[in-house]
C-alpha cells in the first residue's frame, strides 16, 4: 500500500477512536501515580484533530501531521500535549511535502517522533515514560522496514506494547510519577500505554 494524505488522516482517526475507547483506562493508569488526566487530555486533543480533519484534509501527509501537531499542542496541555505535539511536528517536518509515504518514510517518521520526544522531555529508556514504548517501537519498525508499512507498524506496536509493560517494575524518573519515588513501582506508565495504543491503531488502520 502507498500512503497518502487521506490514508494518514485515517490513521489519525483510528488513533482518536482508540484513545476515546481507552480514555478511562488511561485516566485510571494516571490516577495512582499521576493526576488522572492523561486519557482526558489526549481524548480532548484527538477529538479536535478529528473535527479539524472533518473540515478539510490537507494535501500531503506532512500537512495532515502538522495540523495534528498544532491541534494537539493547543488542545492537550499537560506533559503529553507538548510531547506528542512535538513528535508529530518533527514527523511533519521530516516528511516535508511528499505526496505519498513508503515504508522507509514511515520508519523515518517514527525515528523523528522519538527524536522529538527525547529532545523535548530529556527522558531515557528506563525512566518509565512514553520513551520506553517508542524506543523499542522504532527499533522494531527499522527491523521490519522491508515487510511494508502495515507489517512494520504492527511490529512497532508489538514492541511498544512490551515497552509499555516494561515500565511496570520501574521507579519513574521523569514526569509526575517521579515525585513518588519508590511508590511509582508496580504501575504501567500511562504515556507509554497511550503510545502503544496509538501505534496499534495505526497498524490496524494501515492493513
Amino acid at each position, binding site marked *: 500500500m502507498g500512503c497518502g494524505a487521506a490514508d494518514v488522516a485515517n490513521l489519525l482517526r483510528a488513533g482518536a477512536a482508540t484513545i476515546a475507547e481507552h480514555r478511562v483506562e488511561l485516566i485510571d493508569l494516571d490516577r495512582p501515580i499521576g493526576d488522572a488526566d492523561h486519557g482526558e487530555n489526549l481524548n480532548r486533543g484527538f477529538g479536535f484533530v478529528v473535527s479539524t480533519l472533518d473540515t478539510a484534509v490537507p494535501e500531503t501527509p506532512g500537512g495532515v501531521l502538522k495540523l495534528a501537531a498544532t491541534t494537539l499542542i*493547543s488542545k492537550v496541555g499537560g506533559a503529553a500535549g507538548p510531547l506528542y505535539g512535538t513528535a508529530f511536528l518533527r514527523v511533519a517536518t521530516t516528511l516535508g511535502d511528499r505526496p505519498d509515504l513508503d515504508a522507509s518514510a514511515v520508519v523515518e517518521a517514527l525515528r523523528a517522533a522519538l527524536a522529538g520526544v527525547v529532545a*523535548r522531555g530529556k527522558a531515557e529508556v528506563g525512566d518509565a515514560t512514553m520513551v520506553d514504548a517508542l524506543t523499542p517501537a522504532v527499533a522494531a519498525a527499522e527491523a521490519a522496514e522491508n515487510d511494508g508499512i502495515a507489517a512494520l507498524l504492527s511490529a512497532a506496536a508489538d514492541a511498544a506494547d512490551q515497552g509499555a509493560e516494561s515500565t511496570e517494575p520501574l521507579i519513574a524518573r521523569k514526569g509526575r510519577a*517521579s515525585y513518588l*519515588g519508590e511508590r511509582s513501582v508496580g504501575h504501567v506508565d500511562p504515556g507509554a500505554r497511550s503510545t502503544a495504543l496509538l501505534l496499534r491503531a495505526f497498524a490496524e488502520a494501515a492493513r
Partner: protein
Amino acid sequence: MKKIINDPATVVTESLRGLEAAHSDLLRVGYDPDHVVRADAPVGGKVAVISGGGSGHEPLHGGFVGTGMLHAAVPGAVFTSPTPDGVQAAISATTGAAGALLIVKNYTGDVLNFETAAELAAAEDLDVRSVVIDDDVAVADSTFTAGRRGVGGTVLLEKLTGAASERGDGLDAVEALARKVIGQVRSIGVALTAPTVPHVGEPSFELAADEIEFGIGIHGEPGRERVKAEPADQLVERLVAAVVDDLPFADGDEVLLFTNSMGGTPLLELYLAHGIAERALAQRGIRVTRRLVGPYITSLEMQGISVTLLRMDDELTELWDAPVCTPALRWGM
C-alpha cells in the same frame, strides 16, 4: 461525585465567567484560549508578571490578577497545564517594551508549554523570561528526575515579583528577585482526604480513616508516604521540621510563615495548625515577621494543609507589605 457543575468539559470556562462577573473592576477574561488579565492591561512601562497552570488550585492563579501581583494568569483544564496559545494570548495582552516574567511551577507539562510560548514570544521580539519554582521539599531534589514540584511558594513569588514590577523594577531586577525568592522558599503539604477531579468522578486516591498522605502535591497525586493520622501538634511539627531542615532555616532567621489550606480544611483547623507552626518556629529561634493564613493554593476540595517558609529581609518585607489589589489578596488599597 457531587459537584456544583454542569459538565466536566466546561467547568473551567464557566468558572471564569463567574470570576469575570465578580471582579470586572480588577480583571477581564479572554476565552478560547482562556486567559485572565488585569483590567488595566497592558500597564505601560512595567514588567508583565504572568503565571498559570492547571485549574483546581483557586484562587491560584486567576485570583491573584490585579494591581501589585499578576498581570495575567493562564488557566488550563483541571490539574492540566495550559497550552502555549493561552500563554501567548496572556503575553500579547500584557507585554510591552518592559518585557514579561513567566512564573512556571515545576511540572513537566507547565515547563514545556510555557517554554513553547516563550519561544514564540521571542520570535516576536518580546523580552520574555521564565523562572521555574520548585519549593516542595517532599520531593527529592534531583536533576535526573522531574525534580521538585512548585507549590505554596508560588503564591509568595507572585506577590513579591508583582510588587517589584509595580514599583518599576526592570526585567533583570524582577527576574533576579524571583530567583532569589525561589532560592529561599520551601514548602511541604499533607492531605487528609483526596480531591475528586470533575472528569474522573471519583477521588484521586483512597485513604483509610486513620491514614494521611504526607508530602502531598496539589494535583491529587499521592504523597511521599502514607502515615497514620496523628494529633495536630505532632503533624504540624513534622511539617515544620521538614521545611526548616531542608533549606535549612536557622536560629535567628526572619521568615514569612504561610499556612495554607488545601481547600477542604476548615479555617478553624487551619488557624489551629498555624498557631502550632508559630510555636514550632519560636522554639527553634526562627522569627516569624510576616504571615499568610488561608486557602490560597488548593487542590479542589482536598482536606489538608501546607506550610511554606520564606526567609525574609528588608527588601522582601517591603515588597510583601506593598499594596496589592486582587480578588484573593488585597491590602493597602
